[in-house]
């Protein structure tokens, strides 16, 4: 990425505004995830309501940023690092919007559990733990974007493996729990959907980190782990 300014200061302004809008959207989504975790811990219904309501703002920001990107492409024909930035932003906002959706799913799960007269935190401490990890990934992927730091982004990508592993062990625990005590089935299923949402938040944070690596280094590193795994499995 070049630190030099464009001959057109208007272009610099447009790109700067685009980046700060993405960070604004990122901050909002990060807050939603944080609130979802709080709601899970405390069963606080006001937070649940706020999360669900913030969705419109997130959606509007996504549309506005996409629109700005389309205009910028049409008017400026960005190339090289500018092109990668705009292209990466279009993908990042899609992942951010999905993270917002997952936060909403968590909030709704919490509401169902509370309405059934239970507290989600009585069920899995494990969920809380991966939720914190996923939130950390979201934060760091956004920091990596703000600083255009691909090393930081790659750390986020590595962190996703832990979230995935922990998610699988939570699933096993919950399944055992359900088999042992039939009365817990309904709540366990809700907890499971919350854990699944958390795991997806981690996946989207990882995607964002991959987009950052593309923006900074021009390398497309998506699906590399998966392809390697598939190869190993087919060889085995």
């Amino acid at each position: 990425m070049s630190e030099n300014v464009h001959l057109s200061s208007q272009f610099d302004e447009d790109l700067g505004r685009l980046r700060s809008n993405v960070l604004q959207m990122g901050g909002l989504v990060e807050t939603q995830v944080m609130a979802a975790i709080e709601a899970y811990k405390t069963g606080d219904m006001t937070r649940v309501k706020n999360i669900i309501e913030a969705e419109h703002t997130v959606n509007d920001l996504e549309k506005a940023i996409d629109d700005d990107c389309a205009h910028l492409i049409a008017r400026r024909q960005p190339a090289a690092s500018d092109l990668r930035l705009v292209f990466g932003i279009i993908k990042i906002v899609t992942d951010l919007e999905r993270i917002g959706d997952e936060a909403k799913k968590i909030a709704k799960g919490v509401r169902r559990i509370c309405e059934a007269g239970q507290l989600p935190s009585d069920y899995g401490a494990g969920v809380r733990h991966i939720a914190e990890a996923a939130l950390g990934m979201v934060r760091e992927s956004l920091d990596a974007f703000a600083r255009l730091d691909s090393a930081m982004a790659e750390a986020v990508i590595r962190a996703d493996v832990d979230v995935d592993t922990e998610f699988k062990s939570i699933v096993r625990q919950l399944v055992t729990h359900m088999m042992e005590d039939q009365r817990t089935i309904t709540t366990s299923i809700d907890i499971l959907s919350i854990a699944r949402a958390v795991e997806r938040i981690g996946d989207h944070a990882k995607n964002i980190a991959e987009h950052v690596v593309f923006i900074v280094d021009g390398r497309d590193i998506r699906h590399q782990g998966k392809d390697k795994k598939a190869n190993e499995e087919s060889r085995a």
Partner: protein
Amino acid sequence: MQSQETPTLKAEARNLNFFYGQMQALKKINMPVYDKKVTALIGPSGCGKSTYLRSFNRMHDLYPGNRYEGEIRNTNLLAADVDPIEVRMRVGMVFQKPNPFPKSIFENVAYGLRVRGENNRRVLDDKVERALRDAAIWEEVKDRLPEQAPNLSGGQQQRLCIARALATDPELLLFDEPTSALDPIATAAIEELIHDLKKRVTILIVTHNMQQAARVSDYTAYMFLGEMIEFGKTDEIFIKPKDKRTEDYITGRMG
């Protein structure tokens, strides 16, 4: 999708230096020219694009005081060894401003053939038609071949000049900012034509329109102050150039 085949070499500049008298306009240029591919030369005004382009058809030989060092190797017509007149026949050139001769449309295209001693009317008719068809202008001029060429529109004149260059069956076509005097529609027609022509000929094109370079070329070379800063696949140059100076130029930043 990017193709993985390795292209064959059509020509190659090796340590090419060029001097206008005392002034060195090209500095140690090394660059491959791939067969039946379009290579775009980009860079700020005065960086030596036209000078470099003209080295390929030995146009500089026409003026005293000009001096080369190094060489341009052409796999078929080792430019250093071959008669410059022969080279100019096999290397067509199209300039920024269309420059038809003040003759009929027909005679403009037949000119190169006549210079080569071709006087058989049937052969001339046939080759002129083919060149005009290849330059995508036949349908527009077939009923007015005896008319004066300078009466054509700018875009038509440029395609006529391309037909004139094509008539002698060149192996290499040089375009020096071929569309900078044309409107967008005429420009699109020329770009489309370049796309068709590369099935048969190798093309070098100088353009100061970066989007044009991105649209029409397979390879792009960025020149600065007489040096070749970066040469690479167009996709790579426009997505992830290696040199910061290239990056700054194509993104419109101040170096």
